[in-house]
């Protein structure tokens, strides 16, 4: 086969040297899949968002130009404010989940009895899912729920605190479903940091705060950046709980509700696509900012694994 200087074989050899050979054919199903079910719908949605639906509100107000739906979104405070509403819920939830998971994961990074049990219990809320969590919150934190009874019996409050059907209900549901996820990620980053580094610092006389502040935290920071991004993605796309435990027409009218409303109640797919694109853009801006900050941090081989 190799003895004859056939041009086709020569080409195949040259390609193989650059890593292109028949093994790559295995990628073809996955590539077809991503193009057909992710990239094509995305591009389709993008071009649809520039073709406003005749007869829709946006066209009546701003004509049938390509940007009518976007102009309508940013001009109408009811739509525009969904961005702030979503950020006001998503950012604190993601920030809380990450910050609360650091001390707990730091405490649990070593080996001890029952670690596996605690990790398992903490994974449970991930499987509960948003719908069940919302349902449970309604019963538990509602005006006649156990939480308000305890608070009233303890004399902390004299009438039930309103914790559901408003901002707080959604925030709680995001913390309950999001915290375990952030905790598991943080714990896995922390266990990836070489423990001998801290021991060396302890030998040199560093206290636990100095060890944490100058050794662990700098190595953990890139991982925390990623954890924040993934927590934020989860919190930003809040949808069922914003309807169920929230106040879907006011305080917690998040952007995904606006997109869903446009698509499946007004049947205005161009507007829905425009809202979806704006949603993706806002999310990528936040993630880009965090990842940009992260790229300036130290990412060495000694740990952190970020």
């Amino acid at each position, binding site marked *: 086969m190799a003895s004859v200087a056939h041009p086709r074989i020569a080409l195949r050899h040259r390609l193989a040297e650059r890593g292109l050979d028949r*093994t790559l054919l295995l990628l073809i199903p996955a590539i077809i899949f991503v193009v057909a079910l992710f990239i094509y719908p995305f591009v389709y949605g993008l071009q649809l968002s520039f073709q406003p639906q005749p007869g829709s509100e946006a066209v009546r107000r701003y004509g049938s130009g390509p940007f009518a739906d976007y102009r309508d979104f940013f001009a109408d405070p009811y739509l525009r404010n969904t961005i702030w509403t979503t950020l006001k819920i998503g950012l604190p939830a993601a920030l809380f989940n990450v910050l609360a998971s650091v*001390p707990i994961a730091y405490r649990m990074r070593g080996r001890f009895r029952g670690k596996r049990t605690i990790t398992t219990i903490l994974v449970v809320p991930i*499987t509960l899912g948003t*719908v069940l*969590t919302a349902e449970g919150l309604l*019963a538990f934190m509602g005006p006649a729920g156990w939480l308000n009874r305890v608070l009233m019996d303890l004399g902390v409050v004299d009438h039930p605190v309103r914790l559901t059907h408003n901002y707080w209900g959604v925030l709680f549901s995001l913390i309950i479903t999001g915290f375990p996820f952030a905790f598991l990620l943080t714990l896995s980053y922390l266990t990836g940091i070489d423990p001998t580094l801290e021991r060396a610092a302890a030998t040199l006389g560093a206290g636990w705060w100095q060890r944490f502040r100058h050794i662990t935290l700098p190595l953990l920071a890139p*991982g925390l950046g990623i954890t924040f991004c993934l927590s934020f993605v989860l919190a930003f796309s809040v*949808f069922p709980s914003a309807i169920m435990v929230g106040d879907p027409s006011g305080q917690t009218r998040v952007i995904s509700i606006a997109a869903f409303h446009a698509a499946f109640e007004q049947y205005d797919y161009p507007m829905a696509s425009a809202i979806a694109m704006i949603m993706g853009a806002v999310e990528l801006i936040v993630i880009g900012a965090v990842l940009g900050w992260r790229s300036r941090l130290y990412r060495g081989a000694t740990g952190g*694994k970020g």
Partner: protein
Amino acid sequence: MSTIPAPKRLTLRPGAWLVWGAVAFFLLILLGVVGAVVVDSFGTKWFDGWLPSGWTSRWYGTTWREFDLGSVLWVTLEVALAVVVVSLLVGVPAAYALARRAFPGKRVLMVAFLLPILIPPITYGVPLATVLYKFHLAGKLTGVILANLVPAVPFVILVMTPFIEQIDPKIESAARMCGASTRVIFTRILGPLLVPGMLAAAILVLVRTVGMFELTFLTAGPDSQTLVVALYYSVSAAGIRAQQEIDAMAVIYTLSMLVLLVAALRFVNPTQLVTQIKETD
């Protein structure tokens, strides 16, 4: 590790108590949230007071009949199994190519495979549902399966690529030296080695698909609802149905998820899994 005593003298510091207190508080809230649903589902009436006024299990029977949970569970199973099988068939070969070869454009491809996980389901779910409706696929089982595959295939690739990377390529070369054909290498050498990783990926995809609300919600028709979507509809139609029936349904959902979770944790250590995923980028 056994010879060096671990530095464990922080156990009685106030900081430790604070942290354990916070964990206990979180677990207490969690217990309250789950407990309230479970208790209500077994109660006759519960308007005021710490507990329902009487106990019964009849809500499970009525909710099973009225929401036709038998067929809902069957749909859930069909969707989940189809997604698992197809995502493994598409994802594992791609993960093999990505783990074994360095080629121009690999980074772009990795980003394309990562995006469906990084972008929230509603963002691509709305255009995806629009496209699926255009081709008359949405509202049917096919549409639900296709939509759920979008995050599942990248997830399999993400889990399997580091798993395949740690299998020594010399084993394949040795088999080839001994005269094994490509087919034999895949069925007799790689297959058995890949089984643990594929099992882990399959169970995780199963859990994610059963719990996936947004994509199923956007593409499901009346006959293709999975359990979580049926639960959502029953909650938003509250007032027509007794609250206890909805809670009974929620308990059924939780139990099925717990069974899957316990099965998953037998094969996968959650903390290690995340680290493995991380090492790919």
